[in-house]
């Protein structure tokens, strides 16, 4: 009995497409193991095979020396395996406390207790976990109303409630602000050091991987191709080429671009006030995007970036304020008519059509005659051409992201609103996407980019805005922002 987890040559196909074909790995007690690899390499599928959400076609999975290959997920959980999902996966209609409490009750095997109130059991355990994860001030909120980052942390809390020996985390810091990322890493490291908890996680943020993991496993096209210490893997030339893509360029690349002469404004937002039910989310947000510009909208989770974009396209109609597109007032216009005017919108949560194929996803969105056709988006994202006949739900998270962007492009928009396009993409793909967005810009497309990835956004954009607590806190060029450490630290934590 040495290994906590051993995966032996597992295979799994979806309607003929092999997502995992020969993956092996092992986790020793007390180890933190990271799995890295390009989007679509099969990381999430491998995690589903480990946790029993899917069963493998071939191969075996051992947990603490016991063959669990055919065990269902709930049984593996009771054997000490806790996990989180790539997309925040909580109980939205229950309060934060009830979320964790339900998990504690499952751990205590009280699920079938019928008569005494739930609040007589495992309350202290639930509070301990809430305090451990720092969620206790929000205990009474409905989980569905938490910010994205907090939902991710709540997920970790749910996994911890099962008192796991091995914690499996699927991109734990995706979509988190630098502050939340740091807090999450601290939590993981602490659990590992103090409680001896083993962790298996996959992640695209290489700083996270190299600072946290003891062992790094590299996946490529469904196989595990390398395994070693972070240093060994970092130096492996094959990994460099397939995944990491060399050193990151400095932010000065874009900053060096010459300021362009002022063009006519394409989008003018004035005094926007938006509410979700009774809660006031945006306060007098004003911004302007001129033709041919790339404008950044930076801010932490829950700062109001997504809401601003949704208010512009009419998904969350603002209560007060005006949105003008080419001088035309968009007030009261439903989202589909806004789209027809030439505003493309890429939501942060992908929203692809799961039962349509990649090709069908794109066909239903094709509109107008312009540079963007099926062929041209396929050459932008070759992986989508390869998978054109696959159903949307069979794509990996990163591929769905690409599909969402491609889908906005085939509508041939003049203005593209991108909500966190970089989230969940492998480093190499972030670079590719950056290239592509720059290319789009040079072809005359106007872009409003809401991002948390501050360096990437600053490399791409000319100027922009920083938003916090629903208010615009800063407006200026990339150089202005770089020269203003106070704004960066206070609102962006970088």
């Amino acid at each position: 009995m040495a290994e906590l987890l051993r995966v032996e040559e597992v295979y799994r196909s979806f309607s003929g497409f092999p997502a995992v074909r020969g993956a092996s790995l092992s986790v020793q007690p007390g180890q933190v193991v990271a799995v890295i690899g390009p989007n679509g390499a099969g990381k999430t599928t491998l995690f589903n095979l480990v946790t029993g959400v899917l069963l493998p076609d071939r191969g075996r999975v051992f947990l603490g020396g016991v063959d669990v290959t055919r065990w269902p997920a709930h049984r593996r959980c009771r054997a000490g395996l806790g996990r989180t999902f790539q997309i925040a996966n909580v109980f939205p209609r229950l309060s934060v406390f009830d979320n964790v409490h339900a998990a504690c009750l499952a751990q205590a095997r009280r699920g079938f207790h019928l008569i005494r109130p739930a609040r007589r059991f495992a309350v202290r355990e639930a509070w301990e976990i809430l305090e451990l994860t720092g969620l206790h001030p929000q205990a009474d909120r409905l989980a569905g109303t938490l910010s994205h980052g907090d939902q991710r942390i709540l997920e970790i809390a749910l996994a911890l409630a099962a008192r796991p020996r091995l914690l499996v985390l699927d991109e734990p810091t995706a979509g988190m602000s630098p502050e939340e990322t740091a807090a999450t890493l601290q939590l993981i490291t602490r659990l590992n050091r103090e409680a001896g908890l083993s962790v298996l996680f996959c992640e695209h943020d290489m700083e996270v991987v190299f600072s946290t993991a003891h062992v790094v496993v590299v996946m490529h096209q469904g196989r595990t191709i390398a395994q070693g210490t972070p240093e060994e893997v970092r130096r492996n030339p094959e990994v460099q080429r397939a995944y990491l893509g060399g050193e990151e360029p400095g932010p000065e690349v874009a900053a060096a671009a010459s300021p362009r002469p002022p063009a006519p404004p394409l989008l003018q937002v004035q005094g926007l006030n938006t509410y979700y039910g009774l809660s006031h989310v945006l306060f007098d947000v004003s911004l302007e995007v001129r033709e041919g510009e790339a404008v950044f909208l930076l801010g932490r989770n829950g700062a109001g970036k997504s809401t601003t974009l949704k208010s512009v396209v009419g998904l969350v109609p603002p209560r007060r304020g005006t949105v003008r597109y080419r001088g035309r007032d968009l007030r009261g216009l439903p989202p589909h008519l806004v789209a027809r005017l030439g505003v493309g919108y890429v939501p942060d949560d992908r929203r692809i059509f799961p039962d349509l194929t990649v090709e069908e996803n794109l066909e239903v969105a094709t509109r107008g005659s312009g540079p963007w056709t099926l062929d041209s988006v396929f050459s932008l994202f070759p992986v989508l051409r390869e998978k054109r006949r696959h159903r949307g739900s069979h794509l990996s998270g990163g591929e769905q992201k690409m599909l969402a962007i491609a889908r906005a492009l085939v509508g041939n928009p003049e203005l593209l609103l991108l909500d966190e396009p970089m989230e969940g993409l492998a480093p190499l793909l972030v670079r590719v996407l950056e290239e592509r967005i720059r290319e789009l810009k040079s072809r005359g497309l106007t872009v409003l980019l809401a991002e948390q990835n501050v360096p990437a956004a600053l490399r791409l954009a000319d100027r922009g805005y920083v938003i916090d607590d629903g208010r615009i806190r800063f407006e200026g060029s990339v150089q202005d922002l770089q020269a203003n450490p106070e704004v960066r630290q206070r609102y962006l934590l970088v």
Partner: protein
Amino acid sequence: MVNGRIVAGLLLAAGLAAAPAVLPPFFVYLLALVLVTGLLATSLNLVLGYGGLYQFHHGVFYGIGAYTAAVGITRLGWPAWLAFVAGPVAAAAAGLVIGFFCVRLSRLYFGMLQLSLGSLVWIVALRWYPVTGGDNGIHGIPLPAALQTLPGAYALVACTVAASLGVLWAVVRSPFGLTLQAIRDNPQRAQVMGVDVRAHQLAAMVLAAFFAGVAGVLYVALERSVFPNMLFWVLSLEILVMCLLGGWFTFSGPVVGAAVLVGLRTLVGRYTEYWTLVLGVLLILLIFFLPEGIMGHLQRRWTWTRAPSPHPAAAGGTRG
């Protein structure tokens, strides 16, 4: 907060107890009918609103409860108390059998399979003349003298419904109830938390079927007759509408929905046979203005109905 709930409950109990003394008999009868239907709808809501299962044919369990009692008394010569216990037990057994197959399917397929299995039961009730009386049903079921008067029947209905709702309320607040709601929100997440999702869904169905059976037996006590329409899918649809109308994410919603529906049918039905027209308009208005149902809307306003999370200092229980 909690006091508000207790006061509201006591007032309600007092009102129910005083009803036969102050109301004319017709309204006492109507109130009893509302209570029976309200229990039926609440039992459905355990699986629908709290469990997130598309229980499209809940009327079957109501019918099985009622028919078991009726057949037991008239054909098998059982004493009333035995028949009244056998009804819910038979309904729960049917829930176990039908549920066993249904929980293997997801969402709409669950509902479709249930409709087909339920329709089988309906056909049996409709065609098996020697036992069920076929399309005539069974009428004039002999009951003990105490139940033959309206106040007697009302007392049985009111006490049983109150006790049953009390049990269902406890179930909803129990660890089982919380787990069920977690499954409703996200079955996959619940599964990797170590919850056996199907076993919980099946248990919820058996419980719901049991209390639908209780409602069926009470209907026999009140009306002294059963008829095959009790198992027809149209009735199941009506119960579903009651839950949506009253608010399917609340405990009291289904009772309120039942009151509205039974009231409409009886009171508006006196003036026109097109009372469903009124119901239709009401439903449309509801979907637009109160999408969470009547009680769902009120609970948003009345924050005192929301209990805060217990703190360990106050609750202290660690017996998990």
